[in-house]
């Protein structure tokens, strides 16, 4: 019956199949490459990453070395962005500051993504009183402004790079968890989850293999955007002197140092502020781009609309 006719049709398909796979991959790449927000955000972040990695080679001076003979100097060949009130190279401090900011962003995203995904998926999938309990805790945490919470946590733990990362991560985990839970709630009733039960899969396998992978796209978008808030939070803490301790160069501390001389030498604070702004915008653009390109559902819908 079906075999003869369908199989002959398939033979012609085999070639097209391999071609098709290659074509689909090309299409996926093209989708990213033609998305301006994704490209701009991605390029800026890659450049910032390179700056962070190669900071010691790029920076014209040591970010810590003070030059008492050149305090608050204007731009020069040796100090392209001038010096601060301790005679340190502003550009070098900004370059090294990239390291702290990106580290904070990276670890906060990693921690809050892992924890938030786990908590949110658990709440959404299990339901019942466990879900209600988790939701109450999340709501309580979310009731505090994220930054204030981080501030309190750092104040309690003492300030160091680690405690900044932990504090900010704790403050932002509930956001990821909330998104995760709501996405999982939409996935749980979908037929392929029931189908997984029907073939005899255990809950853990269903959760890890079927629920979480299908929920990741929006969560990754949220995580990207929360990287931006993490950088802002770190800068804010450093600005208040609660972040990474001086003299370690961070963007926040450069702003704080510049603030004392903001009337005479505004360029110090402004340049650090620009660094933060550019990074945050780049992360948000990347998040937008990911949102548009990650979700196969959305892609299929736009495809289906045509026919």
């Amino acid at each position: 019956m079906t075999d003869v006719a369908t199989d002959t049709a398939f033979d012609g398909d085999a070639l097209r199949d391999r071609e098709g796979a290659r074509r689909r991959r090309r299409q996926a790449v093209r989708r990213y490459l033609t998305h301006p927000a994704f490209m701009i955000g991605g390029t800026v972040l890659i450049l910032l990453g390179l700056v962070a990695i190669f900071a010691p080679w790029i920076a014209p001076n040591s970010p810590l070395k003070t030059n008492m003979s050149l305090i608050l100097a204007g731009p020069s060949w040796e100090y392209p962005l001038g010096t601060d009130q301790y005679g340190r190279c502003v550009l070098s401090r900004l370059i090294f500051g990239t390291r702290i900011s990106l580290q904070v962003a990276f670890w906060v995203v990693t921690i809050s993504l892992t924890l938030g995904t786990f908590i949110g998926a658990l709440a959404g999938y299990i339901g019942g009183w466990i879900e209600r309990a988790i939701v109450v805790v999340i709501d309580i945490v979310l009731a505090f402004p994220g930054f204030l919470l981080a501030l309190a946590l750092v104040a309690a733990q003492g300030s160091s790079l680690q405690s900044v990362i932990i504090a900010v991560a704790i403050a932002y985990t509930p956001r990821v968890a909330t998104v995760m839970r709501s996405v999982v709630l939409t996935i749980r009733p979908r037929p392929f989850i029931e189908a997984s039960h029907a073939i005899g899969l255990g809950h853990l396998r269903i959760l890890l293999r079927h629920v979480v992978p299908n929920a990741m796209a929006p969560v990754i978008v949220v995580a990207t955007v929360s990287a931006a808030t993490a950088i802002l939070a770190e800068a804010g803490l450093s600005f208040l002197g609660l972040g990474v301790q001086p003299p370690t160069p961070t963007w926040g501390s450069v702003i704080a140092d510049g603030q004392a001389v903001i009337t005479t030498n505004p360029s110090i604070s402004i340049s650090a502020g620009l660094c933060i702004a550019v990074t945050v915008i780049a992360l948000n653009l990347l998040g937008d781009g990911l949102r548009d390109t990650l979700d196969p559902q959305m892609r299929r819908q736009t495809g289906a609309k045509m026919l």
Partner: protein
Amino acid sequence: MTMHPGTPAADDTLLQVRGLTKTFGGRSLLPGKAKPVVRAVDGIDFHIRRGETFGVVGETGSGKSTLGRVVLRLLDPTDGQILFDGQDITTMPRSRVRALRRDMQMVFQDPYGSLDPRMKVGQIIAEPMRVHGLARGNLAARTAEIMRQVGLAPHMADRYPHEFSGGQRQRIGIARAMALDPKLLVLDEPVSALDVSIQAQILNLLRDIQRQSGVAYLFIAHDLAVVRHISDRIAVMYLGRVVEMATRDKLYANPRHPYTAALLSAVPIPNLSKERARRRIPLHGEIGSATAMPSGCRFHPRCFKARLVAQRGGVETAAAKDGTVLPAPCVRTDPALAQDSEGQMVACHFPLEGAEAAQATPAAPVRTSGDPA
């Protein structure tokens, strides 16, 4: 296929269901907010033999889909008993039910939603074998074999579900269900989402698979023609109950329950002379709600036969909720499913007789006596 110990070889009953009931709602953690109880499946008895196809037809709200899920223990029964392959699985703990999935599988209605969009087709089909520890080592070979059996080219294993048409996806769903070589397959509206030309491909495939593997089907559908085509025996469901159960030929040639007759008469036949000679038996109102079950026979508010019997006179009558005068038993007593001399089971106080039943069947058109025209 392995024979489970304790199964007598002569007994060919694979599934036996007694008094199966599933209700939803009614419980609530917050006091005063209890939802109304929905009696989705309400005291159902039937059995399925090995290698046989048992069809279940019914309209929206009849409880047919819930029935399929309770039988598989995807939902836990509220009451009753399920015997599968000689063992009582009614209250079996979840962990053991999971092992049981090797022998009982399901194919779903929605060929788009029932496949994980992020998994490749090969992974989807191999997954049941992987979790049940089958075909270790030659998983890929076995996957390719199953794909060929359901009419899919094995080289398609690396594609994602969204690259397939509806019919092909349903083949994938069937392949996944058949990968474990089960003894019972519950098919919940397996072709209703497919285009007409594709439905036949899938129905033929299901027949071929059954001939080769001896799997039994519980085939749930609303399409009477499709159910007739594939089933050996058929149960007609209405509001959680089986109202009629018989072999295929008896049910379609000689429906005895007024609901079955009305249902059959509503299905048009694509043959001009036959179709033009038929009359549709009109039903009154709409299917009732399982939260506010009618008194007596669940079908009485819509039943034409009850009205005819009351008009004809000679029976004690009573007023239904809307004031219609109907025979008292219909309004007061819930009829039990009883077997007639022909072995046909019907739950009706006044089952249709000969000519009355024949008017709904395609072959022999008969005029309704009570037609107002």
